[in-house]
């Protein structure tokens, strides 16, 4: 915590997040003026219609399309950034990101497998996909940590190489499955590239329990992660149950990532970029870094999503493409920086 004050980091992040939600609701094929949005929401709360929206079309667009979409994107961004920060603390490595270490691809494989099976009950299907994604993600993180480990540490290069290997493997299997499956290939592809395809509140409600468990839990592991930065041996000598902390953190981060992937596809780099910005601005104390990353991740992905919906309008670009476009150069910058400077 080098820089204190700067207003209040949490206050700024919450304001940014709210602004991003409003922007996300307002922007689209029909642009809703801010004044109209305010009036429609205000009247809507009273159960009436705004004079600016006599037919109730705006109200419908806002409540049934834009707002649930914005909240889904917010939760996904929050989950990716929050789990990214947690993975970084766990691996003691600044380049850990759910996408880079293969967790997202593992979750994607799990989800695609579940999608290919025809579930007899549709409501069940909505829960089966995140669970399958979780299993895939858990297997991937296990594989990566086994492959990358040298003695007691996980060197950066090993982590990235193991992540690339596991990720490529999972992606290859996923692609193979998709090509072999007839029918909804395009839909699955758009989903996989990070376009939230289902509209309405259903996916929001389905993702919510995973997010509540995953993100609340991640906010609570900040202190043990701080102690863990001194190495497992010292953490144990300071009274931390290291194995337990590690398992709980992996579990929580993987639940969050898997739910995000199950509902929004594979979106890279949010889990890398957001924690890094927060670390640079407000320091490396995980008790602050994780909640700030969660808030910032929501805001960041909302902005990326707005960009994805507008740059090639009326065509929507999958948001995963936009995050990679911005994220990959940032990743290279961090890689260079982490070698030359010891700020980590």
């Amino acid at each position, binding site marked *: *915590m*080098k820089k204190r004050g700067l207003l209040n980091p949490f206050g700024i992040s919450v304001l940014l997040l709210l602004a991003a939600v409003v922007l996300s609701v307002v922007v689209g094929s029909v642009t809703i003026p801010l004044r109209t949005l305010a009036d429609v929401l205000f009247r809507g709360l009273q159960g009436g219609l705004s004079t600016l929206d006599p037919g109730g079309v705006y109200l419908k667009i806002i409540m049934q399309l834009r707002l649930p979409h914005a909240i889904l994107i917010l939760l996904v961004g929050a989950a990716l950034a929050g789990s990214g920060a947690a993975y970084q603390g766990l691996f*003691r490595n600044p380049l850990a990101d759910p996408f880079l270490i293969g967790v997202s691809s593992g979750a994607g494989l799990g989800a695609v497998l579940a999608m290919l099976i025809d579930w007899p009950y549709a409501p069940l299907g909505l829960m089966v996909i995140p669970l399958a994604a979780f299993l895939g993600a858990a297997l991937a993180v296990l594989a990566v940590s086994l492959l990358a480990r040298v003695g007691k540490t996980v060197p950066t290069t090993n982590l990235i190489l193991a992540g690339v290997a596991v990720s490529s493997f999972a992606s290859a299997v996923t692609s193979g499955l998709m090509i072999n499956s007839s029918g909804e290939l395009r839909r699955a592809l758009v989903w996989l590239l990070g376009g939230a395809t289902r509209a309405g509140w259903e996916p929001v409600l389905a993702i919510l329990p995973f997010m509540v468990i995953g993100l609340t839990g991640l906010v*609570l*592991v*900040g*202190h*043990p992660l*701080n*102690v863990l*930065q*001194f190495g497992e*041996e*010292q953490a*144990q*000598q*300071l*009274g*931390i*149950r290291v194995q337990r902390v590690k398992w709980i953190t992996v579990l929580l981060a993987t639940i969050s990532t898997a739910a995000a992937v199950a509902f929004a596809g594979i979106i890279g780099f949010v889990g890398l970029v957001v924690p890094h910005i927060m*670390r640079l601005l407000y*320091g*490396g*104390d995980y*008790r602050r870094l994780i909640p700030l990353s969660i808030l910032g991740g929501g805001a960041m992905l909302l902005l990326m999503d707005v960009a994805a919906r507008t740059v090639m309008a009326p065509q929507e670009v999958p948001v995963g493409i936009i995050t990679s476009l911005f994220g990959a150069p940032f990743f290279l910058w961090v890689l260079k920086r982490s070698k030359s400077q*010891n*700020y*980590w």
Partner: protein
Amino acid sequence: MLEVSHLTAGYGKKHILKDVSFSLGSGQVLALIGPNGSGKTTLVRCISGVLPIESGVVRVTGRDTRSLAEQDRAKLMAVVPQVRTLPAAFSAREVVALGRTPYLNWLGQLSEVDMQVIDRSLQQVNMSEFVERNVSELSGGEQQRLFLARALAQETPLLLMDEPTAHLDLQHQVSLMRLIHRMAHPPAEDLQRGAQPKAILVILHDLNLLSRYTDRVGLLLNGELKLLGTPQEVLHSDALRQAYQLDLRVIRDAESGTEVVVPLEEI
């Protein structure tokens, strides 16, 4: 305070420590010496619970360490590790605050008492002016003292130190050793402030520090405790010469009573 009996341990099938027994009471500094690879660090890791015990028992205040949870163990003994790399994201104060971990819940919130202990620990190692400094800006000696402050913040009756004087210049070596001695033998003013005499186990390489700052010396060789005695007994023993394969001459400084070791020919 610390009781080690018939301790055998190692990595895999290789026994590094063989049937080591000794005890250490409060108000004593016990130095562990021995050639590289003789098992000194392994012994400290074993006592602190990070390396499993194969056979034998380690008791602290009469309690078998294997029956203690991590948190309770960390309230009984603190370890000052050898400084290698520090995570740079922390300020000096935050590092010392982590010493309070065994007394905190998962959220790690510090109470007023915790803050006082942290301040006092920083004062004891003369680091008060560094509190807001980032650890990456500290010198090796300052980082070493910071780790000592963190261990002091654990408020444990037993302190284990792994080569705390390595990489320190002469002045810092002496001030650190004086501090160690003082913690085991607190003067009246410290006692009035509520200080308790600590039991301190310290790994040392510099034989010249023994006579002045330690009460007893244990000589480890190939995982066995060859000799345990006063600094004078150990310095003048044949076992010491055999352990290091050196002919040694011990010279006594008449004024201070300090004994220094002059290495002569290899034997």
